[in-house]
């Protein structure tokens, strides 16, 4: 069936035909069509099933407010559910499927809900809460699976998205959101001042309602005026225009988020992002987002073929589609008569206009009557007839629903008046006021307006978004707002005058929130308020009856306005019904909160480029390519990727780790330690500063020597550790944990800048300047000597905890004799641009000594064998140095250091704190799960825990499972056997021992 009419369809190009698919059927449309207009042109009025009751639903609107026509688009990696047909541009090859039905759109098993609901109000307000309370198990096993299968909108995509997305940042003087009459006029007025203006429009076309509704501006028709003004704006160097770009969210201080749909209308373009998220900083923002028409609430107002009156005009004027052949219009205002006149002029039969007002004598109604169209006043529709399509309406006087008669028709166009789109204005704090005479919420800056960082108002609504629904007032408001915004942005607007606008005068509307019916329809169980979430007038009234007074509570109880359209059509009607039932005025009931985004935006747009290999910024050392080539099994450490171990042919992780440890203990191992944080601290007060930063004394360190140090926060809790090197009299190098360098650097700068600005100290994060390699094991010295070192590195010349600058294998090197493994060990730092070469040189030099690289797990096990703590394992932000047996590193002499006072508090000095202990499992092979809790007795209920495991490994060196734990009064419990209840009723026993498992006297490293 083709419903195109001739002489209409401003946006479509009939010379070209496009082919698309709907539920597998091949259909045709034209360039310029939306998917909705093309479906209507093919007679497809019913496009989906509703959310709860699976009722047949059709296209209602022509824009982003569409509640019903949500389709699945595309396929495979380009499949996307819940796309509004009204905002989807048609292209050749478009594939679409309707949603929420099984097995087919026409015959749906879920519609049984609807049948049941006609007898008993299944799924009425609060149904879930009321029904599924008892028995508890029934929810999980009976109700939930059934409802999950029956409910829900589109299906989630199964394949990864293959499109790309990106962000774009711009700063403008004036941002104008909305490219209708008001937006265009406001932008031009603002731009006349020279201000940088960005004007955006969510559809592909400029003009908004000026394209469809009769208006004469400056002597030109609406479309001609739009064409002229856009050309003028395009010629201005300070104006930028963007279509297919929607204002999605408005935030504090002029920050706006725009959503540009770059290739939705032509998918698969090489290199082009599908969507682009604009992040705009505007000095001034004008919201010219227009208004949305409200449905009327009458029985069976959801039958496919009941549409908004303005949408019917749009389909006719813009796309040349007459969605029906015989139309009944029902309204409470004059504007809807434009639809009657437009249809009549296009040759479509207007069966009647059913006006709820007692009289309709304005220009437009009079014109309608003079065209021979039957107008009923004080009448309403008591019922729409038809199931999957409109077959007629029963109308009756509002005061006598039983006195009804049928009018045959296939389309109902309804209008309950208009609501300004105040969403964006409200996102950033704009307040509203209910205006009784026009029955709408409109911006009320006097009650609170969005402000910039200077405290001045920075966002203004213009035109119909500001409540000026009639074209002449709309134009005047837009021009004034444009000029005012330019002025507020610091520019001087030219004395632009609003062009003359010739438009029909309208009589006021009369609010009408519920059309009475009779019989089973009398209670409003078929008067739909929220089409997308299947909420009826009866649901809203039930909520009020059950004590829900707040609109926010009613919203959650009934799900009114909670669907993906955020109640664009239902909010006002819903809250008017609630107010009516509560017997309170609408402003007292208030409106729900508007939240970004204005309409759903893609997850891809939010993600931008941060997907796939760019998902997260990853730091790599200069040896990373070597690691990749040599079996490295990586793990993330902070932003770094570090080799966990290097797996050889046939090895699993465990075997590789054990091999690496034993080889390091027996021969020599090589560790990429480049990730270690390195911070330079220089100045005459550097020693004094570090004495304040570390818990132990650093100012006494001799040049060329190293000292292990602890940093506490001001609460006395340990947060980082590492070796400090005195490079020169006034210069230190601080080593931090791999993940902690940025935080520690920030910590140092904060204290220097905010508290100790009198200290002469500079710091710099030099982590990336150096590639660093640890050479550890009995043969470490031999390897470095084999590599060629200019300095004497014998035990006497370079003792433990000392440092020299030298040249190794020809590379400039800082050589530190420090050990985290307990072995004879050196760390060599070379400028990063030599890092990969030094690594290779050491591997070559160590080949005869059995050198093998080792990863972070071997590092962890070896440090645990030595009882060295690891920040993040043994510490969790509540652990002090004393708890860890590190009191030796907390100075008693220093007058002050960060955390000193806190460490003296009663809670941090009490004797029953948890203290670090070693654990040997009774079973040598069994490794305690990390985090396992030790309990006083498993017979207690509940069991009382006395601490938990912080590090736990199998030690290949000892051939025994070892662990460290924080245990209450741990230091007093040496030799005590602890009980660890595990999952599956298992119990594991371990005995408390010294946390230093290996070489307590340090003989291995002092050679």
């Amino acid at each position, binding site marked *: 069936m083709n419903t195109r009419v001739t002489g209409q369809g401003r946006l479509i190009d009939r010379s070209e035909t496009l082919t698309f698919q709907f539920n597998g059927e091949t259909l045709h449309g034209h360039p310029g069509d939306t998917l909705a207009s093309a479906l209507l042109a093919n007679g497809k009025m019913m496009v989906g099933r509703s959310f709860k009751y699976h009722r047949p639903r059709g296209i209602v609107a022509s824009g982003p407010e569409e509640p019903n026509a949500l389709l699945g688009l595309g396929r495979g990696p380009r499949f996307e559910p819940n796309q509004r047909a009204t905002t989807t541009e048609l292209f050749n090859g478009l594939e679409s499927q309707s949603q929420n039905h099984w097995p087919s759109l026409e015959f749906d098993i879920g519609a049984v809900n609807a049948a049941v609901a006609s007898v008993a109000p299944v799924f009425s307000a609060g149904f879930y809460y009321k029904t599924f309370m008892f028995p508890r198990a029934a929810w999980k096993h009976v109700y939930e699976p059934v409802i999950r299968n029956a409910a829900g909108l589109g299906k989630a995509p199964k394949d990864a998205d293959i499109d790309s997305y*990106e962000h*774009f940042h711009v700063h403008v003087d004036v941002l104008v959101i909305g490219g209708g009459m008001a937006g265009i006029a406001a932008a031009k007025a603002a731009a006349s001042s020279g201000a940088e203006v960005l004007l955006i429009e969510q559809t592909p076309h400029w003009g908004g309602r000026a394209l469809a509704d009769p208006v004469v501006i400056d002597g030109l028709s609406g479309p001609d005026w739009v064409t002229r003004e856009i050309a003028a704006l395009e010629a201005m160097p300070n104006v930028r225009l963007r279509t297919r770009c929607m204002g999605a969210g408005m935030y504090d201080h002029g920050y706006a988020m725009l959503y540009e749909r770059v290739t939705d209308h032509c998918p698969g373009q090489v290199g082009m992002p599908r969507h682009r998220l604009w992040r705009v900083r505007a000095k001034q923002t004008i919201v010219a987002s227009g208004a949305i028409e409200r449905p009327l609430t009458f029985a069976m107002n959801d039958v496919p073929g009941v549409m908004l009156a303005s949408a019917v005009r749009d389909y006719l004027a813009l796309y040349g589609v007459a969605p029906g052949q015989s139309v009944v219009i029902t309204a409470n205002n004059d504007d809807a008569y434009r639809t009657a006149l437009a249809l009549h002029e296009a040759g479509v039969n207007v069966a009647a206009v059913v006006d709820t007002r007692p009289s309709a004598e304005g220009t437009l109604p009079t014109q309608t009557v003079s065209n021979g169209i039957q107008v009923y006043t004080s009448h309403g529709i008591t019922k729409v007839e038809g199931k999957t399509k409109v077959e007629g309406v029963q109308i009756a006087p509002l005061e006598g629903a039983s006195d009804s008669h049928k009018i045959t028709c296939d389309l109902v166009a309804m209008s309950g008046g208009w609501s300004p789109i105040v969403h964006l204005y409200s996102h950033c704090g704009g307040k509203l006021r209910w205006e009784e005479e026009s029955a709408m919420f409109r911006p009320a800056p006097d009650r609170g307006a969005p402000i910039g960082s200077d405290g001045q108002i920075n966002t203004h609504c213009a035109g119909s978004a500001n409540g000026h629904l009639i074209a002449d007032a709309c134009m005047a408001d837009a021009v004034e707002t444009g000029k005012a915004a330019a002025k507020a942005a610091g520019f001087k607007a030219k004395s632009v005058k609003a062009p003359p606008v010739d438009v029909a005068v309208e009589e006021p509307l009369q609010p009408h929130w519920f059309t009475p019916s009779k019989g089973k329809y009398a209670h409003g169980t078929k008067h739909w308020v929220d089409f997308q979430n299947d909420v009826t007038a009866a649901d809203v009234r039930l909520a009020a009856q059950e004590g829900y007074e707040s609109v926010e509570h009613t919203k959650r109880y009934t799900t009114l306005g909670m669907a993906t359209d955020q109640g664009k059509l239902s909010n006002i009607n819903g809250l008017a019904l609630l107010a009516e039932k509560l017997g309170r005025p609408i402003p007292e009931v208030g409106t729900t909160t508007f939240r970004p985004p204005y309409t759903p935006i893609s997850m891809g747009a939010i993600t931008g480029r941060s997907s796939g290999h760019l998902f997260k910024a990853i730091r790599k050392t200069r040896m990373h390519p070597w690691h990749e080539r040599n079996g490295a099994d990586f793990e993330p450490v902070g932003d770094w990727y570090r080799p966990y171990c290097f797996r050889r042919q046939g090895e699993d992780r465990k075997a590789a780790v054990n091999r690496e440890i034993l080889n390091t203990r027996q021969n020599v191992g090589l560790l990429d330690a480049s990730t270690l944080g390195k911070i330079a601290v220089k*100045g005459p007060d550097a020693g004094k500063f570090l004495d304040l930063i570390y818990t132990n004394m650093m100012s006494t360190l001799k040049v060329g020597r190293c000292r292990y140090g602890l940093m506490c926060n001001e609460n006395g809790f340990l947060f980082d550790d590492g070796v400090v090197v005195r490079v020169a009299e006034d210069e230190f190098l601080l080593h931090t944990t791999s993940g902690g360098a940025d935080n520690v650097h920030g910590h140092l700068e904060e204290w220097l800048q905010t508290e100790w600005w009198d200290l002469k100290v*500079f710091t710099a994060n030099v982590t990336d*300047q150096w590639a660093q390699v640890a050479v550890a094991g009995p043969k470490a010295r031999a390897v470095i000597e084999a590599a060629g070192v200019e300095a004497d590195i014998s035990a006497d010349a370079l003792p433990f905890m000392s440092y020299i600058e030298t040249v190794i*294998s020809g590379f400039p090197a800082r050589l530190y004799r420090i050990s985290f493994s307990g072995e004879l060990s050196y760390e060599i730092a070379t*400028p990063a*641009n030599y890092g990969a070469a030094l690594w290779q040189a050491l591997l070559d030099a160590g080949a005869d000594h059995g050198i093998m690289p080792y990863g972070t797990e071997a590092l962890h096990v070896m440090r645990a064998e030595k009882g060295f703590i690891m920040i993040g394992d043994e510490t969790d932000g509540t652990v002090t140095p004393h708890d860890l047996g590190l009191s030796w590193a907390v100075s008693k002499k220093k007058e002050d250091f960060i955390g000193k006072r806190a460490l003296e508090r009663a809670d941090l000095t009490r004797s029953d704190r948890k203290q670090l202990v070693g654990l040997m499992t009774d079973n040598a092979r069994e490794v305690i799960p990390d985090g396992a809790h030790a309990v006083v007795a498993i017979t207690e209920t509940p069991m009382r825990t006395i601490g938990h495991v912080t590090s736990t490994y199998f030690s290949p060196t000892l051939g025994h499972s070892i662990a460290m734990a924080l245990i209450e009064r741990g230091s007093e419990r040496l030799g005590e056997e602890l009980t660890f209840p595990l999952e599956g009723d298992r119990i594991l026993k371990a005995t408390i021992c010294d946390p230093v498992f290996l070489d307590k006297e340090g003989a291995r490293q002092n050679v």
Partner: protein
Amino acid sequence: MSDPQTVLNGELVERNRSARIEEMGPTGQITLRGDLSNAAVKKAVKGAVGVDVPTPLTATFNGAGGAVWMSQDEVLLLTEYDRIGAKITKLNKALDNHHVMVLDVSDARAVIRVTGAGARELMAKGAPLDVSDAAFPVGTARRTHFAEIAVGIWRREEEVWEIVCFQSYAQHLFSWLKASSVTGASVGYF
């Protein structure tokens, strides 16, 4: 001893791109922290890299020499990689009695140059900066976040922009620039 090799080894892309993106290879970089208003500091900077201490949020260049304002008390000096040792010695000598920090950070940061008509747009994709001519004329410098990492950005010439980042992040930054500069992805805004 082998030659120093930067993290991206001078990688370059320009085909099918809106801009030419190139890692600059070994670049001499010195962090100088101190009192930038001090006459001796000013003189030492001029002597070392041939340009004046830049005013806040700017960068100045003279051939291979250059100075970028990093904060109230920090400038990044640019010079030839192989002359870095001599420059540092010279600076330290000139500022012997002053409280300053002079550090060789040549290997710490990667320098990526973005050249061409699409360069500015690429900056606007990555950073929340105002890169309009009015706000970001040639010689402007900013420290900001770009593609979720910390960077320094300056506009060296009309269509020549440079970004520095910690070298461990350079691969991420370069891959990001590559992906975002595909010809079809042009915004056409500026």
